[in-house]
């Protein structure tokens, strides 16, 4: 079975580290991007199974990334420090599948990813 690929888009190196370690331990292949532009560029070349997207990014922000994702994009989970309902609602309306508020426990993240991937499979 080929490992599932996850693209982590976040400008905070320690968040990327945290998510990468947690997911790699679960057997996922982890790709990372430090900005919105970075992420969109990577997506042109690669096709991850799921995208983890931060909303506050240097340059174009998470919402802009959501807007520019292709029609048949992989499912997106937003990881945000925004606790307000406004951001969550907006992100969900723009097509993200899950909205996880920081801080979160790695298990919580893994559970959501698995649920989405299994539901899809």
């Amino acid at each position, binding site marked *: 079975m080929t490992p599932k690929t996850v693209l982590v888009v976040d*400008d*905070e*190196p*320690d*968040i990327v*580290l*945290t*998510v990468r*370690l*947690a997911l790699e*331990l679960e057997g996922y292949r982890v790709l990372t991007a430090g900005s919105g532009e970075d992420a969109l560029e990577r997506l042109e070349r690669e096709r991850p199974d799921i995208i983890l997207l931060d909303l506050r990014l*240097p*340059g174009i922000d998470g919402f802009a990334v959501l807007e520019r994702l292709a029609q048949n994009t992989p499912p997106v989970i937003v990881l945000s*420090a*925004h*606790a*307000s309902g406004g951001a969550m609602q907006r992100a969900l309306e723009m097509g993200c599948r899950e909205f996880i*508020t*920081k*801080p*979160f*426990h*790695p*298990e919580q993240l893994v559970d959501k990813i698995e649920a989405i991937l299994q539901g899809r499979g």
Partner: protein
Amino acid sequence: MDTAAHPLEIALGIAFLLLSAVCLAKAHRQDDRALSLAGWAFATIGVLMTLTFFGPVTDYRYSFLGPFSLLLFLWSGYLLLLFRHSLLPLGPSFRAAALGVTLALTPLIVVADLPYTDDPRLSGVQFALVMAIALLWSIFVGGTARTFWREARDRPSVQRARLRMLSTGFIGLVVVALTWAGTSGDQSTLLLGVKLLALGMVPLLYVSFAAPLWLRRAWRDKEETSLFAARDLVLFHPEIRSVAEHAVHWAQRLVGADAGFLISAQGDVLAADRLDAADVDRFRLEDSRSVIEVPLEYGEGTGSLVLVTGPFTPLFGSDEVERLEAFGSIVAVALDRVRLIMALGHENERYERLLQAVSDLDEGVVVTDQGRLVYANDAYVRMTGYTLDELMALPSLLELSLPEEREQITERLRLRLAGGDVEDHYEAGLMHKAGHRVDTESAVKLIQTDEGVRIVSVIRDVTERKRHERQLRELDATKSEFISNAAHELRTPLTAIVGLAATLADSRDLLEEKDVNACIEGLDRGAKRLALLVNRLLDFTQLDTGRLQLDLQAVSLAEIAEQVLEANPAPEDVEVRIEISDNFIVWADPVRLDQILTNLISNAYRHGGHEVRIHAERDDDGVLVDIDDDGPGVPEALIDSLFHPFVRGSADQQGAGLGLAIVRRLAEAFGGRVTYHPVRPHGARFRVRLRPAA
């Protein structure tokens, strides 16, 4: 001798005796001492005249007649003087002198043995005696006439006419006496004239003591005319006491009374003229002949108008009483009128007070009739900025409402007038004359008046309150945003700490050595960042609320700058130049100044280029410290909010987003300032202005 003179003499005698009888009878009836004195004086004159008639008839043998007539004459003068004294007292010395002279002349007359003939031949001494007596008589009687004439001057016309008449009679007598005494028998024509004049004086004196009705009315006529002319002024005065005063005054004038007072139905003395309180009480209690009481029937009950007659008051007959009663009924009407006016006045006063109270309110009160202003208090007028006249001239107050609200207000008004269920309280804006908006809160009620429906609105200016509410909301929003931002900042390091700690705890054995190290380093960074963030938040909130404790003192700028550079050495690719030429001593908290410079210098290291320059100089206002770099500078879009909390350059991931906000507030707490200036062609300059210590 002229025979025509003789019947005249007997007529004179009879006339004076009759006058005397009338006076004495009246004096007896009225117990009037003055009048009885006058009566006795006229009696002596009457006897004198009668003797003059009998003289020639009885021939000259009754030699006693000469001195006796002269004695009668002398004493008649003294009696007339006493009459005057009983009305208007003489000085005691004058009175004593008068009596003395009269008494002294009496024996002289007897001794002189005057001949009594129709045409006596008098010796020089005898003539002198006769002339002295005539002169004395003239002084007594003429003086009395003069006194009466003068006394009449300031009295009611009724009394005046009487006194003048009396005075004229006395003067007539003096003329008669002097002429008679100085006339010899051959001047019979002159003597006849004198006797006729004397006869003419008798009716004059008679009416002055017992005036007939027609004459009393004639005397009164002048007062009636004045009263008629002044009746509105005097009787319809709006004040009850002055109505009473006028009533007393005019009643006295009408009948020639000396004093008077007016008592209300409750027994209060409303007015008293020429009487003090004790007099009034005395007259109220005593049933005196000299007092006339006229009942006053008016709304409150029966009061009375009381008049006190005086010695010069003419006869007081039923005509006078009737006249006074008629006058009394007018006074009663006037009293009723005043009471009504007073009652209305009280009502009016209450209304005025109410209006005044409404005027003084802080809230505007407005009464409108179909939109047009009927009443507005000062507060409303002030609220609009217009004058009351300008507001009154508006076809409708609706013109002051905001255009966007007019339709709604009109509709609400229509509903209200139609009896619909409309909320009495609402908020609306109004356009101030100066053009700005005034926020108001109105309470509206309809009132039914005789002239139709009026709308009463109580309007409160809530502009200030709204502004406060807006400010509070803004402040609240700022606080919420701050808390939300602060929470956001805390979430990032927390996420790393929670995640990395969980990974280490659960799967440490599965991790490679370098990943374990990465985890531990990540935890360390997260914890440090969390600590930094919490410290910054505390600093910021303390600065923001003015609770940060500062230790302000004179500080050497160069020393602090060196200390900062030692603790924060430049990265390898950055060159720092420090240009602090002088030993600037500034007023600051050294720890906090260190914090400011550390923050700005590390920013320059992080965001700048390869060169950082620290430069200080003095200007008129203080010491300027510039921290310049040759980096890209702060993006245009960020400049305005650069010093706001949680605003940071996109590349800045390490800070809490509070650094510059804190730096600015710290500098302000020292009395200084931090500003940003772009550097051409590229670069950033942060300028710290500090107060010199001296």
